[in-house]
């Protein structure tokens, strides 16, 4: 165990270096893109403040943004603040960006976790059914459904679900994360779940076809393997084979895929949150872009890259820890 740990150190260091370089690059690119924009952030900020701004206040804002400094200095300044946890102040919401992100991320996380678990479970289960019934009618039918669903845009599916279940049937609220007019502290868990349900279902419906088709392919490979032939020769039935060998061999790839799909999950949540006016990071980022709220836009971009990175790291670690062929190779 200890040896294994020692062997991991150089690999871990290299991986850490790569992660840091990627995050730095994201911050540079994001900053450069914003800088190159014809939209003047200070002007927007002042417009956002609305009332007439005194020259002193204006100077203070320009000072904060370092408008008169060269871009590199401005970037370094911003990065320094970022590393200290100061992401600036949102013009749109008039609050520190860090505070907005932490609060909205909690909402988004609840939504994304629900969608992630739901799409993972549905996708995996359907993938297993397709693999077991390979080339028979359940497989063919589910495959067609998967292809169809991967052509459906997230926002339109959200619109349709909203129309059917919220507007027409009235089973679910039309939007937001909690009932309007109820104090934040008084919102019950069930009320939150009620508001979360439709966006989470939308997000999971568009993401499960990928995992289902992947699982199907893996299961087909496993079922045509030599070790499954031997298991059949030893008298194991289809169900026993699926339980003893199938799940063992396809669960890890499926879980890894699911962890490395955080980027799609986040991207999808931007759309789902906008359709359902759900107050998460996704609706904040599109509002930030439309209202030229540069600090918030930058903050969420970097944060989303960090989020994707966490998923990829977990996926990589999973293989190292769970797969015995990698874990115990030195023994």
């Amino acid at each position, binding site marked *: 165990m200890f040896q294994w740990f020692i062997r991991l150190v150089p690999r871990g260091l290299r991986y850490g270096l790569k992660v840091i370089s990627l995050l730095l690059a994201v911050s540079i690119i994001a900053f450069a893109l914003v800088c190159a924009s014809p939209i003047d952030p200070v002007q927007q900020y002042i417009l956002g403040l609305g009332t007439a701004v005194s020259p002193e206040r204006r100077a203070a804002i320009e000072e904060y943004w370092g408008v008169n400094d060269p871009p590199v200095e401005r970037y370094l300044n911003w990065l320094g603040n970022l590393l200290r946890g100061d992401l600036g102040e949102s013009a749109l919401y008039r609050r520190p960006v860090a505070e907005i992100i932490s609060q909205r991320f909690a909402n988004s996380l609840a939504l994304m976790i629900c969608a992630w678990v739901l799409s993972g479970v549905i996708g995996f289960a359907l993938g297993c059914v397709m693999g077991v019934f390979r080339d028979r009618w359940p497989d063919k039918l589910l495959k067609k459904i998967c292809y169809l669903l991967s052509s459906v845009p997230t926002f339109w599916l959200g619109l349709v679900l909203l129309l059917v279940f919220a507007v027409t049937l009235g089973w679910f609220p039309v939007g937001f994360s909690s009932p309007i007019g109820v104090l934040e502290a008084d919102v019950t868990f069930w009320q939150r779940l009620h508001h979360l349900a439709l966006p989470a279902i939308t997000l999971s419906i568009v993401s499960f076809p990928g995992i289902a088709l992947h699982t199907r392919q893996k299961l087909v490979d496993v079922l045509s*393997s*030599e*070790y499954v*032939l*031997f*298991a*059949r*020769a*030893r*008298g*194991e*039935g289809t169900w*026993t084979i699926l339980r*003893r*060998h199938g799940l*063992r*061999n396809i669960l*890890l790839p499926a879980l890894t895929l699911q962890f490395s799909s955080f980027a799609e999950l986040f991207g999808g949540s931007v759309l789902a949150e906008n359709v359902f006016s759900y107050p998460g990071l996704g609706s904040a980022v599109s509002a930030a872009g439309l209202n030229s709220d540069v600090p918030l836009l930058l903050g969420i971009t970097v944060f989303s890259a960090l989020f994707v990175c966490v998923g990829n790291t977990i996926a990589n670690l999973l293989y190292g820890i769970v*797969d*015995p*062929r990698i874990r*115990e190779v030195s*023994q």
Partner: protein
Amino acid sequence: MEAKNESLLEIHDLSVAFRMYDQVLGQKDLQVISDLHLTVRPGEVVAVAGSSGSGKSLLASAILGILPGNATVKGHLHYQGQELTPARQAALRGTEIALVPQSVAYLDPLMKIGAQADGHRRPKPTEKRRELFRRLSLPEKTGKLYPFQLSGGMARRVLVSTALISGARLIIADEPTPGMSLDQALEALKLFRQMADQGKGVVLITHDIDLAFAFADRVAVFYAGTTVETAPAADFRAGPEALRHPYSRALWRALPQNGFQPIDGFQPYAGALPGGCLFAPRCPYKTAQCEQSPPPVREIRGGEVRCYHGA
């Protein structure tokens, strides 16, 4: 029917065909095993010997009833005198009839050896397995390893142990020796000999004709999906005069120590089998009769042969 009760496994006129979709002809059947005969009695090792690509491994799948879905099986299989129906095959796989596969690839790469050797049946035979591992001189910790951590010899013994744990009376070993040194091969074959000595019937499917001749009680020569001759192994050790079929004799002569004489021609492809005797296109003794209809099985000097002219 005294003989039938005495035998463990009897195969009569077994044919296996695969339904294939061909580029030109559309759907067609590919005959991989034709009119095969084989008898296995308790306490004997019967080698099914033939060159690679003659469909030997499919014989094991056919006996166990685990052929792919596009295969059709004709003929009769009897186990202990009773017809082997698909339902009976399903009940007997892993309990009465056990397969010893070729290599470590037949073990689940993500499951520990102990759990795999124990199998899926409950109660787990863990004590019996430990005992067997000791007898097969597998180290104590083997049960905690994964297949990729086994050496070739250990993997072989683990695979054999699965058959022994099951307590099966008929054991089908599929190509147990390729990739082994002579010592390892002899050791592996010794394990099968021991099983036979305990009263089990062993079918040894192999292309290693030499080892088959040396270790088996009887040898069935497999050619183009059928057994052309089944005879006591002693006859094969004695030389071509003791043999009954021209192919067996050619096989004997092709061995390095017997002159290394190859025979002309190729084994026919499963999709293009000749109409009469399957060996006729390469046979030096063929007559018009041979090309018209396949010869029946004849008993000659304590062996079975499928030839009009065999003597």
